[in-house]
């Protein structure tokens, strides 16, 4: 009897979860067999640690087949593998590209929304540098040196400043930076940022900071009346927020797995 009951209470061995994963996209504009592997090697030389065994998606949205028709994707796959990376799929919408991908046994992802194409590999390398800061810190030092040709520029933080009220049903996302709002955020509105969120007015909607996993992100607001606050996926709903900090200037931080609220 005992094993049977334990069978019953045992949790299921798997779970399906929707998840957003940041992944590098390799955008192919045209095909040149020798040029491709050379260009790849050159890029990798800039930051070898970042690219070793790195999964990538091949984007064909901007591929110009007027000059060179799309080659067998297995060839590209092997060039990428030789460079030390793993091709995990392609992003395309043209039917012939999709059928090529199926021939090569590669999964097909839909094209980027709103016509927003993946950024250049340079930007991606920088992005990755930021997100994998801890794991590849020692190697990072070498990258600027080998890239001496590029002008030494400070990376521009992609902060977003909003001066108008954020109304119910509106959603604002500060990709790659902080979100600063100087007007009320209504119930039913949603703020998202890869970095911190500042609201210099009542925060009545939802605020999700560090949406791509930045655990040091913080939320600041002048009056905490939020429906939900979240940092790097850890959240609290208004029921848990109504307490000494409710309707007061508050800072929200993530300590381990818990959100903590402090007065400002």
């Amino acid at each position: 009897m005992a094993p049977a009951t334990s069978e019953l209470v045992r949790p299921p061995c798997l779970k399906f979860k929707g998840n957003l994963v940041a992944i590098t996209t390799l955008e192919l504009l045209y095909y040149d067999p020798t040029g491709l592997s050379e260009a790849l090697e050159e890029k990798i030389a800039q930051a070898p640690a970042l690219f070793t065994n790195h999964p990538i998606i091949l984007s064909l949205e901007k591929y110009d087949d007027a000059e060179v028709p799309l080659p067998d994707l297995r060839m590209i796959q092997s060039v990428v593998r030789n460079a030390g990376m793993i091709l995990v799929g392609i992003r395309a919408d043209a039917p012939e590209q999709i059928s090529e991908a199926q021939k090569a046994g590669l999964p097909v992802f839909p094209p980027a929304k709103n016509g927003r194409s993946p950024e250049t590999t340079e930007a991606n390398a920088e992005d990755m540098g930021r997100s994998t800061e801890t794991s590849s810190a020692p190697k990072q030092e070498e990258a600027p040196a080998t890239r001496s040709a590029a002008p030494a520029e400070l990376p521009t933080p992609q902060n977003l400043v909003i001066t108008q009220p954020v109304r119910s049903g509106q959603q604002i996302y500060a990709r790659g930076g902080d979100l600063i709002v100087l007007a009320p955020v209504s119930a039913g509105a949603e703020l998202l940022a890869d970095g911190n969120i500042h609201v210099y007015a009542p925060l009545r909607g939802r605020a999700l900071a560090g949406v791509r996993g930045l655990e040091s992100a913080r939320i600041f607001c002048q009056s905490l009346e939020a429906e939900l606050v979240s940092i790097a996926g850890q959240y609290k709903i208004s029921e848990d927020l109504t307490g000494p900090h409710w309707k007061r200037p508050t800072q929200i931080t993530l300590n381990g797995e818990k959100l903590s609220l402090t007065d400002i």
Partner: protein
Amino acid sequence: MSKIIVVTSGKGGVGKTTTSASIATGLALRGHKTVVIDFDVGLRNLDLIMNCERRVVYDFVNVINGEAALSQALIKDKHSDKLFILPASQTRDKDALTQEGVEKVLNELSKTFDYIVCDSPAGIEHGALMALYFADEAVVVTNPEVSSVRDSDRILGIIHSKSKRAAMGLEPIKEHLLLTRYSPERVKRGEMLSVQDVEEILSIPLLGVIPESQSVLTASNQGVPVIHDEISDAGQAYLDAVARLLGESKEHRFLDLPKKGFFKRMFGGTA
């Protein structure tokens, strides 16, 4: 150049048509040539409130489709020769309102009218979008209760992001809050949101507060916009709102419980 004013709310039944009729009438009473358009295609109501339902021959959709001239569809108000009504079609749906068609009609109206009042349907779909798209000013009608306030907030977001002025990067639509069905007594009992509560949530300037009043329903059923009822507090409140819309500054009335007594009767006008 005429001014296009949309009367909108998101939520239904808060008093958009009542307000459209009274504001359009008020503007005409003040000497401005005004037309009020019913955008609620399929659920035509404005003609009933304005008591001209028996005179509807052609409608807004006929004009958009080129089946009638604008002059054939416009109905002259019985009370004011400066006021005209462009009724909605009862037999069509909102998809009959094309952006080009609406623009064409508004352009033609703006040649002869000082004010064009657009009575929006409820909701945030196509009909409501068409009513607000070309607006210069918006009167957001809100009842003092949470769901109405939430919906008004939503429509304000749409005014800000989806109107022509937003799309072209022009100066944003001027927004006005009109609080209707307000009952100071119920606010005092904590059953209703106060003016301050609503103003704080929506953070737009207050155009007026229309008190809950028997006279509104009576006026609707008789087909006489309540603004004509100058004895009622609702009628007076609409007169004040129209004056503010025209840029006059008037103190807000009917916000507090009427004190029973000789003085209040003299100054509060709560007859």
